[in-house]
């Protein structure tokens, strides 16, 4: 036998188990009733807790990013908008930034600022035409393709369309690997090699 530190308690409990009475039965009933009441009240509250979880894309909507003519061909600029789902007390955090690149005419690429590695804000350097991430060293080319560092893929992009001379993007949620606006399959090869050597 293992001499556990406190044997006295186990002894009392065993004595108690022997007595089966009406009182004991009522105690069990009262516990069951309490459990039922608690479950009945608590179950809907789980719905309250999980409230923020919505269907895929439910947070997204079309957002105007200004006139097409605001953007110059071949240039990448930071554009900002207020997230469609925002509270009055969000302050500046209700704002979202993205990079708009007008390729030619009505052809655009709209990148998320969030690095595809772990979401830090990438910075655009027009001189070297690279996006660089300050956190873990992810670097992307001007077309969003991965150039160096830990990211496994290129920058996230938003779907866009041009309506009546206005640039609209489909956004509303922080882009992550679980909900990226557009999935780029496969790993791009490192520059100068044929094999995808990353790291």
């Amino acid at each position, binding site marked *: 036998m293992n001499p556990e530190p406190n044997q006295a308690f186990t002894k009392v409990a065993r004595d108690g188990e022997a007595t089966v009475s009406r009182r004991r039965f009522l105690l069990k009933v009262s516990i069951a009733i309490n459990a039922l009441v608690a479950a009945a009240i608590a179950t809907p509250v789980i719905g309250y807790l999980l409230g923020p*979880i919505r269907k895929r894309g439910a947070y997204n909507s079309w957002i105007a990013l200004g006139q097409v003519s605001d953007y110059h061909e071949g240039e990448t600029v930071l554009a900002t908008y207020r997230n469609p*789902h925002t509270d009055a007390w*969000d302050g500046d955090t209700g704002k979202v930034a993205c990079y708009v690149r007008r390729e030619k005419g009505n052809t655009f690429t709209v990148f998320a600022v*969030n690095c595809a*590695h772990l979401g*830090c804000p990438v910075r655009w350097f027009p001189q070297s035409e690279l996006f660089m991430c300050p*956190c873990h*060293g992810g670097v992307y080319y*001007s077309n969003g393709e991965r150039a160096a560092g830990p990211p496994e893929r290129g920058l996230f992009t938003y779907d866009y369309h041009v309506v009546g001379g206005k640039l609209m993007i489909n956004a509303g949620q922080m882009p992550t690997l679980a909900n990226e606006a557009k999935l780029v399959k496969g790993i791009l090869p490192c520059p100068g090699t044929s094999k995808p050597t990353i790291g």
Partner: protein
Amino acid sequence: MPWYKQAYDWVERRVQLEGFVKESAEHPVPSKTASWWYVFGSASFVLLLLQIVTGILLALVYVPSAGSAWSSLQVLNHQLPLGWFLRGMHGWGSNFMVAVVLIHMCQVFLFGAYKFPRELTWILGVFLLLMTLGMAFTGQVLRFDQDAYWGLGIGASIMSRVPFIGRQLVEFMLGGPIIAGATLSRFFTLHVFVIPATMLAFASLHVWLVLKLGINEWPTPGRLVKRETYIQEYNELTHKDGVPFFSGAIWKDAMFSAGIVLAVAVCALLLGPIGPTGVPDPTIVQTVPKPDFFFLWIYSALAFLPPSIETPVMLIAPVIGIIVMLVLPFVAGLGEKSWYRRPVAVLLVVVLAAGFATLTHLGTYVPWSPQMDGWSADPVPVHFVDQTKPLERQGAIVFQQKQCRNCHQMGGLGGRRGPSLDDVATRLTEDQLVRQVTQGGGNMPAYGKTLSPAQVTALVAFLETLHPSNQPVAIDASRHVAETNNPAPKEPVEAIRP
């Protein structure tokens, strides 16, 4: 009878706590454990209380709203008398608490205190450690500056990698689609209600177990823990060679705790409050987010994980680590307690400490990241352009303007992502430099599209000058032979590019 004695008796006749308190205070502890090695647990508890008190005082002013949290910290820092000091106490108290809790854990581990019958004490301690780290992280979030904002972004990005339910976890964690007011409210709730309440309950139970099971005796090599005999041996030890906790041992605890609280206050006074950094405006992308000191090692680890195993390691390694800590007392709960006879335990502590220290140190200067202002902040040292030709000087301008400096050091300044270029000409020939610049490779982006042929020529001409005066530049010997036998026409570099 004086009035205070009467009042005391009046209360005591009702609450009847005197006997219990006296018994607890005077319980015998092994005389050797009245040691300076046994003070870290009580200091952790004192720091927890200090955090609660300073936290309540800060909560009088702090506004847990995404739009106002940052401004309310500015009011605390700059407008309210001693607001900065209380923020300093809370921030440094947090740093000290993580440190003391970790030391306490190492001590308990090395002294074999987690062994029978104190398994549950250890398990509660593991949860207390996790909650201490949880408080440190949520506290950093409550600072709600740029570091907090992007730190949450990193957290959400890690969550998003969970298979199947990643997206749902992100939305649950953020309380909505983006990092905003709902996110701060969630972390406020965790930091102020959920975790502290659980911590107090766990810490109380932890202390209760120490009282009931007795403090771990000083480990003696050769004295093994056996289920059958341990408790009897311990009782004999405390009765033969014991001292009452009060006041045989408690004075050391009290002195150390006072010293720690004083150290927190000195740090708060001299080093001031921690942050906040810039406003949490996600449209300001000119930021270099960094976690607090005790999370730097995670930040570093995330930079070094190979992408192929990154996600599994991120998600599984913490779970394995926690499980290992939790099952430790069940797989190694008996036998030798002394560190003299537990080389694996000692080695483990040393290796882990060295590992964490190395990663933390790397996290302080992030050699894996481009230095975002390297190209605009660090000038090319004068001696590198002294006595150079116009073409080479033009190359230095290209070098600087195309952000090469963000990743390459020169004269000890600049990013460390790539190698320092002070003597690059001794390592790469002209052709190799052209290839490396235009095609990239080895984790360097290709610049072929963003540099004109003339710029490449100038840049390579500049890089060719970078070598110590006593070391020649690297040359392609075969080309030299080819040129002497059958001299090629003198062509500019871009002409020989494919």
